[in-house]
C-alpha cells in the first residue's frame, strides 16, 4: 500500500481514538442541563479555535490528498504540485498565526475576553501535541520501514513530508486540545 495513504489511515485512527477518549471522559462528568431550546454559550476562545480548525483542516486534508494522489516522487519532481501543496500548508500556517496573534492580544490586553477557565484550557491544550506527533512519527516509521525494508534506502522527499506532517498535526492538535478542553471541564 502507498506509504502516505498508510500514514493517513494511521493518523485517522489516532484522531478517532482521541475523540472517543474525549467523549468517554465527558460522559464521566455530570451532564450540563440547559433550559429547553437553549444552546451552550460558546466562549471567544472556543469560537476562535473552532473556526481555526474549520479553516485549517480542509487545507491540510487537501495537501495530504494531493500528495497521496500524485505520489511522493511526483510531488518532489513536479514544481506545480509541490508549490500547490506548499501553498496550502503555508495557508494553514497563516491561519495558525492569526489564531496565535488573536490569543496573544487577548492575553496581553487582559480585557476579560479570556477568563481563568479559558486560560486553564489554553495552558493544557498543548498536552495533546506530543502524543499526536509521536503517533505521526510512529506511522511514518512503520510505513517507511515496511515499504523500504528491502532496499535499505528511503527517498529524501520523506524527510520533507515528515516535517510538514508533524507541524500540521501539531497545529491541529492545539485546536482540538482547546475544543476537547471545553468538553471535558
Amino acid at each position, binding site marked *: 500500500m502507498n506509504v502516505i495513504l498508510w500514514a493517513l489511515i494511521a493518523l485517522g485512527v489516532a484522531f478517532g481514538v482521541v475523540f472517543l477518549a474525549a467523549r468517554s471522559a465527558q460522559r464521566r462528568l455530570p451532564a450540563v442541563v440547559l433550559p429547553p431550546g437553549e444552546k451552550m454559550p460558546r466562549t471567544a476562545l472556543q469560537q476562535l479555535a473552532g473556526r481555526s480548525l474549520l479553516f485549517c483542516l480542509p487545507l491540510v486534508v487537501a495537501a495530504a490528498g494531493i500528495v497521496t494522489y500524485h505520489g511522493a516522487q511526483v510531488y518532489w519532481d513536479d514544481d506545480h504540485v509541490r508549490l500547490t501543496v506548499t501553498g496550502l500548508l503555508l495557508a494553514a500556517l497563516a491561519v495558525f498565526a492569526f489564531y496565535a496573534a488573536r490569543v496573544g492580544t487577548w492575553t496581553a490586553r487582559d480585557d*476579560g475576553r479570556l477568563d*481563568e477557565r479559558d486560560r486553564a484550557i489554553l495552558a493544557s491544550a498543548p498536552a495533546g501535541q506530543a502524543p499526536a506527533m509521536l503517533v505521526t512519527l510512529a506511522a511514518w516509521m512503520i510505513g517507511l520501514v515496511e515499504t523500504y525494508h528491502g532496499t535499505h534506502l528511503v527517498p529524501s522527499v520523506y524527510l520533507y513530508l515528515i516535517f510538514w506532517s508533524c507541524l500540521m498535526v501539531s497545529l491541529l492538535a492545539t485546536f482540538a486540545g482547546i475544543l476537547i478542553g471545553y468538553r471535558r*471541564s
Partner: protein
Amino acid sequence: MAKAQIRNEIRRLRFEHGEMTQQALADRVGCSRQTILVLEQGRYVPSLLLALQIAKVFGTTVEAVFTLEERP
C-alpha cells in the same frame, strides 16, 4: 482518604438576588457565562479569587457559597 466534592449555592443565590441572570453574574465577576454555567452545575471548580468575587457579589462569605461535601 474520603473523596471530596465541592458543592455550590450559586443558582439559589442568583434567584435570591432578584433573579440575577448568569450573564449578569458573569459580567460582574469578569468571566464568561459558560464558566458560570459549568460552575453552577459542579463541572468546574473556581480559583480562590473567582470564589471570593462571587461571594462578594452576593454579599456573603465563600463558605456560604461553596461547601465541601465528603463522600465515603
